[in-house]
């Protein structure tokens, strides 16, 4: 019986789709009156400008005594390791002193810090409790309207180094090169919202019927499975529905978007963990991502500049950032490891340029960054001792005027779950409490809330 119903639905789609099949074109007004009078909403639909959330991760932390600012509030003096963000400091708030509270759990090196910040608690083992991560909680709430629920990218070129995880068995792989990222967003399936003429692709309708065919097999398969595997099959069908939703969107004309420009495809260059390549690929990815956001292809993104226990290195050196943090001698005069610290400085520079790129795209009465919040974080503070106390955390962008930028807040050893809770609330989620065990909290960081 259920088969018949589905077949009828299919027929309805067929009838609807026959319009598209004939190559019917829709003329749309464009490039004029994009926004309403206040400049904060799209004139075409009346919908507010999209709000976005992203994470930006880099590996191996910093030197606390050279990174943590001394003064709180606005106008704090930049410390040596924060100097690279000087040119964008008005867009960034620094959150120092927030920690993953271990309370008896083992500090799983290069893991507890990042998973702890993103899930709101210290993971009990090296293989479990990996999610859902903050970005997924947020994309579940705000990601449904766009073609991609989220976009993941890894500037160091390793797809599996992604911290966007539904759980330990569902890690959302990252786009490992600028070309992959570009093709995913602006390759086939992309509709320029400002093209003016919209021709739905008849292939899209055929693709949808494939997915509904597959969806009909579900009950039969479910019967064979135990609980754990049923959940995995459920994840498969969630992914399938996500693609159905994407196809749905492709069948209607997207509203025009002033900020959207289709970028030139990037050239394929070397991809490796050589710091120079990573910096270059990161910048290209940031530019593609900025336009993906401006074209409203996604509202959630995750950037990995370098993985935890970073293997970034400089050409000709036998060391990586990670091995340096453990093996390089502290310079007695300087009081830190000069080579390892060089990687911290390069990471901070990359973060500043990421912020700068988002801030360079005008949108509405401000920039893309004004409608975005980006969480910058790392898995350790002092990487030499794998410390997860006082992790380096920064927020860039105001998320549509909801977050204060340009200030420093000292966390005094409190849980990083406060950061995650604040961000969920800023993104409009109705969450009063977040985190688990010793990291559970109901206190957002009120100092940065507008």
């Amino acid at each position, binding site marked *: 019986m259920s088969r018949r119903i589905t077949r009828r639905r299919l027929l309805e789609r067929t009838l609807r789709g026959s319009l598209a*099949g004939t190559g019917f074109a829709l003329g749309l007004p464009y490039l004029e009156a994009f926004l309403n009078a206040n400049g904060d909403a799209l004139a075409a639909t009346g919908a507010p400008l999209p709000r976005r959330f992203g994470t930006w991760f880099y590996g191996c932390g910093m030197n606390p005594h050279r990174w943590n600012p001394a003064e709180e509030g606005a106008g704090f003096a930049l410390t040596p390791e924060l100097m690279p963000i000087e040119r964008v400091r008005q867009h960034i708030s620094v959150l120092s002193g927030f920690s993953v509270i271990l309370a008896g759990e083992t500090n799983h*090196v290069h893991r507890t810090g990042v998973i702890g910040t993103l899930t709101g608690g210290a993971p009990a083992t090296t293989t479990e409790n990996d999610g859902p991560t903050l970005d997924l909680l947020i994309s579940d709430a705000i990601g449904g309207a766009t073609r991609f629920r989220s976009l993941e990218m890894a500037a160091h070129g390793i797809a599996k180094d992604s911290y966007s995880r539904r759980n330990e068995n569902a890690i959302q*792989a990252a786009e490992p090169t600028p070309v992959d990222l570009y093709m995913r967003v602006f390759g086939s399936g992309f509709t320029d919202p400002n093209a003016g003429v919209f021709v739905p692709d008849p292939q899209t309708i055929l693709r949808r019927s494939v997915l509904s065919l*597959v969806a009909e*097999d579900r009950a039969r398969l479910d019967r064979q*499975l135990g609980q754990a595997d*049923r959940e995995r099959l459920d994840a498969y069908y969630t992914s399938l529905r996500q693609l159905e939703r994407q196809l749905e969107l492709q069948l209607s004309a997207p509203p025009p978007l002033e900020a959207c420009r289709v970028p030139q495809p990037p050239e394929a260059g070397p991809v490796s963990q050589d710091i120079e390549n990573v910096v270059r690929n990161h910048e290209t990815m940031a530019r593609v991502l900025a336009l993906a956001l401006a074209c409203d292809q996604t509202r959630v993104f995750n950037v990995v500049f370098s993985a935890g226990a970073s293997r970034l290195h400089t050409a*000709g050196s036998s060391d990586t950032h990670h091995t340096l943090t453990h*093996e390089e001698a502290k310079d007695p005069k300087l009081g830190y490891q000069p080579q390892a610290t060089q990687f911290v400085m390069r990471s901070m520079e990359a973060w500043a340029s990421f912020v700068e790129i988002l801030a360079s795209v005008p949108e509405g009465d401000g920039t893309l960054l004004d409608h975005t919040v980006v969480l910058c974080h790392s898995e350790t503070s002092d990487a030499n*001792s794998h410390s997860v106390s006082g992790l380096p955390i920064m927020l860039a962008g105001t998320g549509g005027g909801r977050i204060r930028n340009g200030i420093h807040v000292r966390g005094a050893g409190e849980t990083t779950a406060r950061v995650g809770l604040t961000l969920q609330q800023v993104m409009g989620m109705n969450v009063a409490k977040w985190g688990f065990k010793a990291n559970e909290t109901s206190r957002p960081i009120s100092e940065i809330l507008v």
Partner: protein
Amino acid sequence: MTEIVNELVGNPAHRHVLLNHLPITGLAVAAIVLAWGIFEDRWAPIVFGLALCLLTSASALLVMQSGDAAYPLLFDRLDGHGQAWLDHHLFLAERYGRLLPVNALLAALAIGVGARRIAWRRRLAIALLATTSACLLATSIIAEAGGKVRHDEFRTTNPPAHDSQGREGGKTLSASGGPVAMRRLTEAQYRRAIADAFGPEIEIAGRFEPDGRRDGLVAVSSAFVTITPSGFEQYEAMAREVARQVVTEPNRSRLLPCAPADPARADAACSEAVLRAFGPRILRRPLAEDEIERRVDAAAEAAERVDDFFAGIELIVTSLLVAPDFLFRIESVEAGAGADGRASLSPATLGSRLSYLLWNAGPDDALLAALAEGRLAEPEAYAREVDRMLASPRFEDGIRAFFEDLFRFGEFADLGKDPLRYPLYSAKVAADAREQTLRVVVDHLVARQGDYRELFTTRRLFMTRTLGPVYALPVQAETGWEAAELAPGDRRAGILTHASFNLLNAHPGRSSPTLRGLFLREALLCQNVPPAPANVDFGLFNADDDPQHKTARDRLEVHSSNASCRNCHALTDPIGLGLENFDGIGRYRASEGGATIDASGDLDGEPFADAVGLGRALAESPLVGRCLVETAYRYAVGRAAALEERPLLRQLERRFEQEGYRIAALMREIALSDGFRTARRPGEGGGS
């Protein structure tokens, strides 16, 4: 009494260690008292001795109960060697332990009889002295094996392997093994499935969901991973691209079993023929009639919509390639389990499990036919099918896939080396190094049917021009591969000295004795090395550019001089340093920073002078064969072996040994085993 002891010591392992002295020391005291009573011929010491016999013999029940309870807690914390001793300990306890309750009964009887019949007292005492001495001997033998579980320093030899006969009567061990698995196809399996169905000409472009690794294997992780939204997007795009190629000329005339009456119209008969041709191959099972009907209908609608018969075929092919039962190998069991909770795998599942184990590919037409006719249910026909598949040239693919997984060669994809430090290195060097080792493995194990352990000593090699400079060997062939044999006494022998391992287990700019040692311990010896503690004092570490410490051995010296490092690094570094003559890309070097490299060391007490000696020591280690058996079984069933399957593993191990460590024999034994052909029924209830 049990409750009191339970309260005192909650952990059965502790309780076992505390209590086990009672039967041993107690029986010894009882024997002395009895002997004294016999000598004096007095009832008081005799009855005291008999009472001691009774109590201490009976205490063995508590010891065995706590031992049984401790077994599963302890087993997973032990390395392979300790596990073997634990199994042996249990085997001895089950065989000889039952003497003690009997002795307790005899002692009770003797007290009863002796109280009434004065004349029998001395004779009873002598009899009990004899049985008690026998019990004392038995408990000492059991305890000796138990001591080796607890103290690895006493484990100088290996215990005999035990087959399931010794353990089937075990009290805590039921016969039910693991559940069925639902395994995501790996990239290699996906590519192979497409090539098998549509031919190798079809190109596959796209990014696959990254493989994980669990219990050392991608094959196990594949039974846990899911498909994420971005992963599904990729699968759908790949499926469409494959389908597009299938219906373009000249592929369409080559591949499709029929041509439509009118290429611009739907043709249900032809669509159905296409589906019947490809469906079973792709889904690894016969298709149900309603599945066929729905797809043929959908194809007809598609064809009419865009006036193209082949659009419908594309739709059919795409729908097969994005189906969950293509992307996952979903296993199922037959209705009606045996009394022990185990059920036979459904024929389609058994066929798929078998072909993926032996070929790393889906069933071929012959196997599908055997499935459809229900022939696999009959043990002899099943064994014949196993032998046919072992004899097929595709068995090489299966062995290759197994060793790629075991050796973690998937990590070659993310490998990077510093071009300034290693100007010889290129992506081609890495690809050839990987292929070289796999060629040696397949040649030795399959073509020559060699002893697995000889992989670590063989001097046979395959070379390419690209590898020539890395090995400092002349290569005649301008393109492709050529067989080579290293001279006896060469600095290389065995696969550990290949570039592949030394490239993979190293940093971008230097070698890593720790990573290499870790790989040997975990992958080849199945031993667990605990992770580093978070609060390591790296101030002790000697920096790479420190002029005082030129070689890795010097720099790693702190690992052995500092107690908190030593525990784990004593497992990894000494054997990893054995490979220090090979740099970060596997090139030979006699010295580092001007200092001569000392590659000597010992593998669990077996000394070696260099990498060749390390290979020899490894080949002689009894753990190497055992570890391969465990890993192959895990690979076959997609999960770590359940506790109840230890006896099966011991049996497989013994067969592997008897068969001269030949891989085909091992795979055959696994395929024929109950553990492979049956599974626990998935939990009832909660269905949708």
